[in-house]
């Protein structure tokens, strides 16, 4: 039997005084230390990310997922932040829709049931087009890079919606500006446009047509192909017969890579090839010996560039988390990365972690945040504003230029 003795000698006093000190230390820690620090435990804010990590758009969707993961890991490293005296940390509930609109709807609805204040995605236009209407009327802020976001921004249901890519439509959009810059540099007289039959294809097609017309360039070939198309040989034969000196290629590597490979196969390499926004240096990889001139518009910023100081911090963090260098396709991660990093500032500025109107207003006011990579702001119409890059590959050498 063990008996607890009271009183006693020096040893017992030492134990007793140590116990008192330990108890005091525990109580001090539980009270949060200094009087100026916020009290109470750190609360968690969960945001939803509805990404196409698998399925037909997986090569892009997996980058979107990684952008969210990287952003959250950076925020973890920064520690909790305070909103109105309460400490918070942010976690992401990342769900994969596999590019299936029905799954994306289910995911979005589960996010709103859980009262997440912010949802990222879906990013694929057709998936977004199905999933976003399923949660309109809910008080939630939605951010998406989908090209079809623009059509909702001016409508009541789009009041808490943000487009994370710069606009591509109309006479002020990126495609129009890019085309004008290319025409100014290379002075083509006849152009061909080949794009997929989807909302982005139609959007880009209209912008190309408008810019070429404004620049007095004759559009001698303009076709849309079904998205499952991989054999472009007959299209190439028809384009060749039309004799353009500039060809605007499809916007994803899924189509642009086989298109260029098949053009090379038949020795059709002399025109200027222009990759629509969505292409990258990976589109032309291994082909620069044959196709001497390839120009493309970087959708966000060329994260593969080792000389661009603007992406240096991102590249370091990316490698630390994923164990590999950012490559030619990593630019897609920037569709969400900065938007996640902005969140602590947004919530602090909003003075709320739940009010969608306050969060929306705050997103439009934030200009500085830790880890900032894109020189991004949101305009009054909730559309991203940043300087797009044009990339020029001539004889195997790539140079980047900010397209003002």
């Amino acid at each position, binding site marked *: 039997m063990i008996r607890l003795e009271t009183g006693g000698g020096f040893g017992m006093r030492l134990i007793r005084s140590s116990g008192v000190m330990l108890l005091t230390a525990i109580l001090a820690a539980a009270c949060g230390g200094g009087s100026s620090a916020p009290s109470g435990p750190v609360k968690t804010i969960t945001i939803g990310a509805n990404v196409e990590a698998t399925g037909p758009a997986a090569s892009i969707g997996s980058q979107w997922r990684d952008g969210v993961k990287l952003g959250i890991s950076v925020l973890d490293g920064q520690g909790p932040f305070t909103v109105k005296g309460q400490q918070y940390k942010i976690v992401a509930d990342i769900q994969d829709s596999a590019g299936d609109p029905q799954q994306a709807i289910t995911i979005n609805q589960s996010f709103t049931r859980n009262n997440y204040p912010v949802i990222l995605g879906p990013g694929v236009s057709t998936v977004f087009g199905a999933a976003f209407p399923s949660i309109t009327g809910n008080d939630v802020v939605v951010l998406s890079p989908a090209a079809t976001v623009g059509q909702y921004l001016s409508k009541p249901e789009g009041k808490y919606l943000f487009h994370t890519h710069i606009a591509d439509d109309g006479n002020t959009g990126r495609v129009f500006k890019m085309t004008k810059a290319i025409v100014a540099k290379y002075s083509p007289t006849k152009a061909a446009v080949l794009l997929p039959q989807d909302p982005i294809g139609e959007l880009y097609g209209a912008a190309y047509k408008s810019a070429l017309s404004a620049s007095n360039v004759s559009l001698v070939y303009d076709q849309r192909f079904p998205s499952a198309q991989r054999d472009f040989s007959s299209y190439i034969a028809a384009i060749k017969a039309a004799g353009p000196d500039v060809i605007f290629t499809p916007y994803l590597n899924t189509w642009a*890579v086989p298109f260029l490979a098949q053009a090379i196969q038949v020795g059709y390499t002399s025109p200027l090839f222009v990759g629509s926004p969505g292409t990258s240096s990976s589109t032309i990889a291994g082909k620069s010996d044959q196709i001497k001139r390839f120009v493309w518009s970087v959708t966000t910023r060329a994260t593969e560039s080792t000389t661009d100081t603007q992406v240096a911090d991102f590249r370091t963090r990316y490698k630390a988390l994923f164990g590999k260098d950012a490559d030619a396709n990593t630019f897609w991660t920037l569709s969400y990365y900065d938007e996640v990093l902005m969140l602590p500032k947004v919530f602090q500025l909003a003075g709320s972690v739940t009010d969608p109107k306050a969060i929306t207003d705050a997103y439009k006011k934030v200009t500085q945040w830790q880890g900032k990579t894109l020189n991004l702001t949101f305009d009054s119409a909730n559309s991203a504003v940043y300087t797009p890059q044009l990339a020029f590959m001539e004889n195997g050498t790539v140079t980047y230029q900010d397209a003002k």
Partner: protein
Amino acid sequence: MPITMNADLLASAIVNGLMLASVYALVALGLTVVFGLLDIVNFAHGQILLLGAYVTFALVSHQVSFWVALVGAALVVTALGAALERVVFRPVERIPINGLLVSIGLIAIFRDLIRGVWGPDQKLLAPPITFVAHFGGVSVPASRLVVVAGTIVVLAGLSVFLYRTRAGKALRATAQNRTAAALMGIPTNRVNNLAFALGACLASIAGSFLAMQFPVEPALADTPLLMGFIVLILGGAGSPVGAVLGALVIGLTQSVAIAFGSSEAAQVIPFLLLAVILFVRPEGIVRVSSERWV
């Protein structure tokens, strides 16, 4: 906007159409062999084709010659086809609708398996032939001509197999009348197994040919499978000769329509032909009741 008709463009369109027709013919023949014997419309045929393309890619990326890889992939996928028939399709063979449902289930399994092993990105295979033949103003990649020639060799081999070998004759006899074939001592279960293996082999060869031309990716088989089904109905379901004729019609009209008309026309024409044939001649170009396997 219409493109001016010229001979070079027409010649290019015909060569491209023949290559398309070759792949469609191989896909449709694979479907025909299985449908003719088992009355199963195998929707997983596209995934089997895809597996052939990925195995070819995997072997080539391990420094195996493309032609050895084509044969290797065909052997692997043929064995898989035989195993699928024995393990998955035979237990449900009495009710064809169940076979159809099983094939739909297999699509999901193969799709996830392929994505799990090779990922979603396009895989580029170093082209085994880079030579480009020039005929007047027409440049034709020799690899396309090789696909056409290879398909002709496969069709000739298939014909010899069906008409000159004991196994081929057993296969045709079973397709014509399963009961009579069984009464004559033909092991019809083994014939079913052979048919599935043969269908998988044809799909794998089509997959290897596609891998030679296009990046290997999960969506590679989508269009060939859809067109394979159209060809199957157009040519006369269950008729190998009809499958080849149907493939030629679809491949050439699609290619010429893209070159001279528009992409929209190329998409509509196969379905238009399908609708016409279903109204005018529902049995297809080749009447199956009299021509099937004969």
